[in-house]
């Protein structure tokens, strides 16, 4: 009985507020837009009994998904989200790895402080961290002022409202997610392996590629997925930094819902986005499983 109560409460909560809402999204993605409240049809009419349920199911169709496939905007947004997420993940890896490596090589008494410095931005508002780049990257922003003053450029660069700004924003906000797993992999590494390699005549660069990188592989993979998966559905960064040039599916969904008020299409966009996300999520789970087994 005690055990039943323990399971039932969180389970009921998640069923009601996670699974059922998702089924509603699925259902509305198969409905048609209508000028009504709520703005879609059909609605389930239980008072009509079995007839009503049958009428309800026969009115559902895949029109919205066909629409997504035929309209350029949607598949271009999916492709561009994946592309941006992929490139941004690589960039975050290139920026994050040296930081994690430096932390792992720092003296022991420095490490808690370095750790705290990496985690601190994570606790500060995401919105504010993205916002802080608007002042830096705008045409009359601090970066352009600096470059003009240095004489590197003679006319201000346009960075804000371009994909470049989106990449900068993603690398900046997701950096801790990349640094922490790589750092924890590097920290566990046995330093005597490198000494052995060098004693046996391996150069330091070669020892890095042959020993350090393979041993930090699970950290690298975990970090990459921790950046890649959330970035695909990202909304705030492309909206604030990307301008109208940057297509990302999270932003398309938002606009479909709030600006066009087309709930069925917004729901269909959500369903397809989830289907796309399943692949990286499963791969990530497999990597986690593997690293757990390696630990034991």
């Amino acid at each position, binding site marked *: 009985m*005690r*055990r039943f109560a*323990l*399971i039932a*409460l*969180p*389970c009921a*909560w*998640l069923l009601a*507020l*996670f*699974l059922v*809402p998702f089924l*509603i*999204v699925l259902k509305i993605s198969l409905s048609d837009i209508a000028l009504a409240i*709520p703005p879609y049809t059909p609605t389930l009419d239980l008072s009509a009994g079995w007839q009503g349920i049958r009428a309800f199911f026969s009115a559902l169709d895949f029109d919205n998904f066909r629409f997504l496939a035929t309209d350029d905007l949607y598949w271009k947004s999916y492709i561009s989200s994946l592309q941006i997420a992929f490139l941004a993940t690589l960039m975050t890896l290139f920026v994050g790895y*040296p*930081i994690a*490596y*430096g*932390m792992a*090589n*720092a*003296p*022991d008494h420095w490490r*808690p402080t370095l750790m705290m*410095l990496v*985690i*601190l*931005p994570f*606790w*500060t*508002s*995401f*919105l*504010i*961290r993205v*916002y*802080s780049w*608007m*002042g830096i990257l*705008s045409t009359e*922003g601090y970066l352009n002022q600096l470059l003009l003053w240095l004489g590197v450029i003679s006319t201000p660069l346009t960075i804000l409202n371009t994909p470049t700004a989106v990449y900068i924003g993603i690398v900046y906000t997701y950096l801790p997610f990349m640094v922490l797993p790589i750092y924890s992999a590097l920290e566990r590494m046995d*330093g*005597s392996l490198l*000494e052995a390699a060098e004693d046996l005549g391996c150069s330091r660069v070669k020892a890095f590629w042959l020993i350090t990188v393979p041993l930090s592989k699970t950290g690298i993979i975990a970090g990459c997925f921790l950046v890649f998966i*959330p970035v*695909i559905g*990202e909304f*705030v960064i492309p909206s*604030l930094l990307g301008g109208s040039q940057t297509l990302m599916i999270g932003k398309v*969904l*938002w606009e479909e*819902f709030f600006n066009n008020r087309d*709930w069925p299409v917004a*729901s269909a966009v*959500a369903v397809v*986005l989830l289907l796309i*996300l399943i692949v990286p*999520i499963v791969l990530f789970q497999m990597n986690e499983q593997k690293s757990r087994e390696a630990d034991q």
Partner: protein
Amino acid sequence: MRRLTWFNTTSLTLGFAFLYLPMIILIVYSFNESKLVTVWAGFSTKWYGTLVQNQAFLDAAWVTLKVALASSTIATILGTMAALVLVRAGRFYGRTLFSGMIYAPLVMPEVITGLSLLLLFIGIGLDRGIFTIILAHTTFSMCFVSVVVSSRLVTFDRSLEEAALDLGCSHFDAFRLVTLPIIAPAVISGWLLAFTLSLDDLVIASFTAGPSATTLPIKIWSSIRLGVSPEINALSTIMIGIVAVGVITASLITKRASLRQQADERAAVHA
């Protein structure tokens, strides 16, 4: 083999400069006299003055705080229960579904979580406001809490609890007097995480908040869409300051606690 080569020092310096410069610039320019945010016109604290008098921001901050307190507390209770189920309940009918529902919200894009909850609230005719935001925030943050707590529970030595039961403790007392104090650090960090996630959330709150309730991130969002503003810089500075003080205090406390624990262990060995 720990060595801090010039390469390590450079990458750490550049890395932390990249992480912190944007925030430092934001803080410095919040004390700028000029309304033009990118032109320095002398030191002034006037934007803090106008911010404190801005009733809309104060109201939004109050709503945000209420939502965060309520949702993180409920999420901590539910999340800890879920963690106990995940780690200890063994096999039961629907276990796969249960763990799926715990892990899925962690990777679910916010736009989808927000959209689905909004469609639910409209479907059952629930008026949107503070209450619906609390429901939404509790749902996703309880999953984060349960992950944090279950990672601690996995390493928990159950024989301590069994000893308490053998000595006549009821199940609830054994949990309250033995298990809870040991997993408390994880429960507290779960609560803090849930609290921060709630304070921070823009997307889910935008979907689930009605016209009657505006949270601080929604308010910030609607004013920064139009560009950089000195008032928002001032507000950001205050928020960064609170977080910095909080994180530094928390890390000092944990450091002192671990030092004390080490001292206790040494004393126990020598005794």
